[in-house]
């Protein structure tokens, strides 16, 4: 293993991570809910009365983030993402993420950020499992096939 120093962004990533933590903190302490994206989206597919508006409000905030980011951040921090996956890979990946996050009741935010912060053994196991699967998948796709 070698470190990819050219792409390494410890400062920005730490700052972004702190913002994620602040959002999760505000959500549990003010709104009383776990900030888990897959749960927030998934709940809209089995809609219940009085349980829709808060999800929509949150997702709307998430959706305008790119616009706000471009408006307030210096231009050198704004760069388009690079997606190497093929169309077929993107579709398969989306299906796996959709089914997996609902079946396992959480993703990087619910199990990762919130679960680890709660010191929940269940979320620690889930996070270890999805990270391990991520490492193995990238190894297979990039270095094996």
């Amino acid at each position, binding site marked *: 293993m070698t470190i990819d120093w050219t792409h390494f962004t410890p400062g920005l990533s730490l700052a972004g991570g702190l913002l994620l933590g602040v959002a999760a903190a505000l959500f549990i302490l003010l709104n009383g809910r776990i900030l888990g994206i897959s749960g927030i989206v998934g709940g809209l597919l089995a809609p219940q009365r009085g349980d829709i508006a808060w999800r929509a409000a949150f997702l709307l905030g998430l959706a305008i983030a790119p616009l706000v980011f471009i408006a307030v951040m210096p231009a050198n921090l704004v760069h388009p993402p690079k997606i190497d996956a093929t169309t077929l890979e993107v579709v398969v990946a989306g299906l796996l993420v959709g089914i997996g996050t609902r079946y396992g009741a959480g993703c990087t935010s619910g199990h990762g950020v919130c679960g680890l912060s*709660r010191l929940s053994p269940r979320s620690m196991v889930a996070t270890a499992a999805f990270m391990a699967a991520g490492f193995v998948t990238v190894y297979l796709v990039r270095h094996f096939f």
Partner: protein
Amino acid sequence: MHRINRIFEFLVGLIFGLGLILSGMTDPSKVIGFLDLSGAWDPSLAFVMGGAVLVGVFAFAIAKKRTSTFLGGALRLPTTSQIDRRLLVGALLFGAGWGLAGFCPGPALVSMSAGQPKALLFVAAMVTGMAIFETAERIARRTKATTHPA
């Protein structure tokens, strides 16, 4: 009645989205650079999780001691602690998908809003996957109800 809460939820979504963009999580090539241990490894995403948990541990330590939010609403902490096959299989499937495209749900939604066509495709597939899960659960519940009538 809880109109003020909608504003908080909107703002929290915005802060979360800004955090995802700033951290690099919305760039699949960066996510895969982190997950690729045998190539040139970019450890940045460990700093994302570190930063988030650094704030989160304090917030959840406070939350665990309370029964209501600071606005007086219900505080809903998860009650499930079971580590079962559902959790493991689900997390493994999710991780495989995450590694395959470099997107997890939040960053995919943000990139879709930024107008990335592949992110839109990913979100469409992801929502389809979630709908498949809901349908499978509904069928399982119905089968259970007919074979074991209450």
